[in-house]
């Protein structure tokens, strides 16, 4: 069973990918975390608390919504949107944040650290830490810090310390490296709340477990609404957490086809140091970095390349090991969407359905818009709207409403100056 293979708590390998390639001093820490996860994910009291907070704190189940207008407009498959944007803090990230923080608390950890790209994982971590009374430090690449400034503000209001990482390309990967260094310096009292299905074992299996609630809900919801399973599942893939969340429960149902969408950025082009995209499945090579073996965008010397995407959450040079395994066995098809297509899809979904997808999720929308007209009305596509797009105001507004936005900002600056 594929679901069992991808929940390999024993070694954390999926085919040749995964593992825990960490300095020796982190080995006991990762082993202890794995043991705690194995204990609690089979513990009734833990699962009861998680279920209770999923409902009352996060707001689960999130709606599965039939996109009638988009379906009519595209004239093909019926399109459903799983609205993870309605989770508390605005994205699916809080699913694994809550789960991990509840484990960390039981392990006696006092301090939680996290990396963040778009800021959604950092925001969700800050929220659960505020709720559970734990100290919270979030590492964020300086480039992401600038382009996702509203989330920096919200994290700080939630009591978190946001550390701007000025090393390397100043994006998600550099934030992960900084968080790993913090964990090396503070191995016993600190839990590293890693925010996707990457990193050393047990993070990929643990986050897959906590995210799998998404697909479980979709199964029940689509049966109720449409009386059959979806024909296609579509999700964007940065590290792969929202995709694993949607896909996992359906992996053993072979009739359900799956598509992952990576960031095509400005084009699938690169030099020896930097990519204009973040499409690991297109030009990545097997490698070992940030604690796990997977595909990485890297040069012939093994140096990891900087990446580029309009969405900070997909702007990452590595990808979850389970994702690569699923591609290699032909279970998930991978494609990519360019930045300009993403902005057009963002607009189309907003105007058709009154829903702002996050720029990350809008990558999935691009593929849905391409696929739907090719399919029949009997077929169903479910895509994961992994987050809501209002966080992207400062990226979208300058591109889609530049003059109005500039005038507004100037007025606000004038008011503040007075």
């Amino acid at each position, binding site marked *: 069973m594929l679901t069992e293979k991808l929940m390999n708590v024993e070694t954390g390998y999926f085919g040749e990918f995964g*593992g*825990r*390639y*960490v*300095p*020796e*001093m982190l*080995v*006991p*820490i990762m082993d202890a975390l794995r043991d705690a996860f194995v204990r609690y994910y089979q513990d009734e009291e833990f699962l009861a608390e998680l279920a209770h907070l999923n409902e009352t704190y996060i707001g689960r189940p999130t709606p599965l919504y039939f996109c009638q207008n988009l379906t009519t407009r595209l004239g093909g498959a019926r399109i459903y949107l799983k609205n993870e944007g309605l989770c508390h803090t605005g994205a699916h990230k809080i699913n694994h944040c809550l789960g991990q923080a509840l484990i960390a608390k039981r392990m006696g950890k006092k301090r939680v650290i996290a990396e963040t790209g778009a800021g959604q994982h950092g925001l969700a971590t800050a929220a659960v830490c505020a709720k559970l009374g734990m100290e919270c430090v979030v590492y964020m690449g300086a480039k992401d810090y600038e382009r996702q400034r509203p989330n920096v503000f919200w994290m700080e209001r939630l009591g978190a310390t946001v550390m701007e990482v000025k*090393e*390397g390309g100043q994006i998600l*990967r550099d934030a992960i*490296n900084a968080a*790993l*260094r913090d964990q*090396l*310096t*503070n*191995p*016993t009292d600190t839990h590293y709340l890693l925010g996707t299905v990457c990193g050393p074992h047990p993070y990929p299996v643990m986050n897959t477990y906590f995210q799998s609630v998404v697909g479980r809900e979709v199964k029940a919801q689509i049966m109720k609404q449409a009386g059959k399973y979806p024909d296609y599942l579509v999700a964007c893939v940065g590290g792969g957490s929202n995709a694993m969340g949607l896909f996992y429960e359906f992996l053993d149902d072979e009739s359900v086809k799956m598509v992952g969408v990576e960031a095509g950025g400005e084009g699938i082009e690169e030099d020896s*140091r930097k990519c204009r995209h973040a499409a690991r499945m297109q030009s990545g*090579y*097997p*490698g*070992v*970095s*940030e*604690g796990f*073996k997977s595909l*990485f965008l*890297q040069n*012939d*010397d*093994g*140096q*990891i*390349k900087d990446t580029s995407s309009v969405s900070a959450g997909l702007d990452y040079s590595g990808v979850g090991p389970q994702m690569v395994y699923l591609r290699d066995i032909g279970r998930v098809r991978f494609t990519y969407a360019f930045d300009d297509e993403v902005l057009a899809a963002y607009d189309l979904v907003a105007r058709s359905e009154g829903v702002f997808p996050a720029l990350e999720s809008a990558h999935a929308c691009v593929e849905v818009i391409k696929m739907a007209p090719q399919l029949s009305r009997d077929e169903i596509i479910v895509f994961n709207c992994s987050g809501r797009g209002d966080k992207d105001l400062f990226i979208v507004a300058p591109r889609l409403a530049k003059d109005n936005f500039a005038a507004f900002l100037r007025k606000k600056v004038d008011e503040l100056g007075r």
Partner: protein
Amino acid sequence: MKNQQIKIMSHLVAGYPSLAESEKIALAMAGAGVSYIEIQIPFSDPVADGPTIAAANRHALDRGTSVNDCFELMTRLKERVSIPLLFMSYYNILFRHGVDAFCARAAAAGCWGLIVPDIPFDEEPGNGYLAACAKWGLNPILVISPITPPDRLRAIGEMAKGFVYCVSGFGITGQERNVSDETRDYLARVRQHISQPLALGFGISSQDQIVAAAEVADIVVIGSKIINLYNQGSETEGLKNISDFLQIS
């Protein structure tokens, strides 16, 4: 002279500030009487290094330093110094080149041992890394920390060759740590399980600390301090700073 007794392993990043300077730094170290030189092959994501060495990695890569350059540097140095020279890097560098092919080239260049912090000894079934080191006659220097449990210490003691690298306290390279009673106890505990010589590293930044560390360890590792010494003053002054620091009087 005390430094006749104190064994030091000093560290440099190949290509920082340039390959030509790296060669001069290594020669200055050898001239000052160190026992081992650790040559770091720069990597884009050096997670086990502190800010000073991480920045030197970035600088070396920005200058275009390649793995091939590092092999050539090793070959040139091997012709001029007789002490053991080691490569330190991260596993992806070996993995991308092919672990066996990398080890073959390192050995051909005259490398004595490898320090690769992010490949735990038990990570890969039939550990290709340790096998390749054995095949090409390289010493795989394994790293341990104060929280390494006894069963892992024993396993490392059985597999280690050359010496074992003991991280002196929690943390990444470049942070100051005194040689405390804790460190003394730590090395005593390690010696119960490991018979190889012990190198103590991470955070040694004064000559007093070197002398103190040498009381408990067989080899004292000097890491980011070298870069800080080099960066104080002109190029010539930098080399002299390194040379003076390493000659413990």
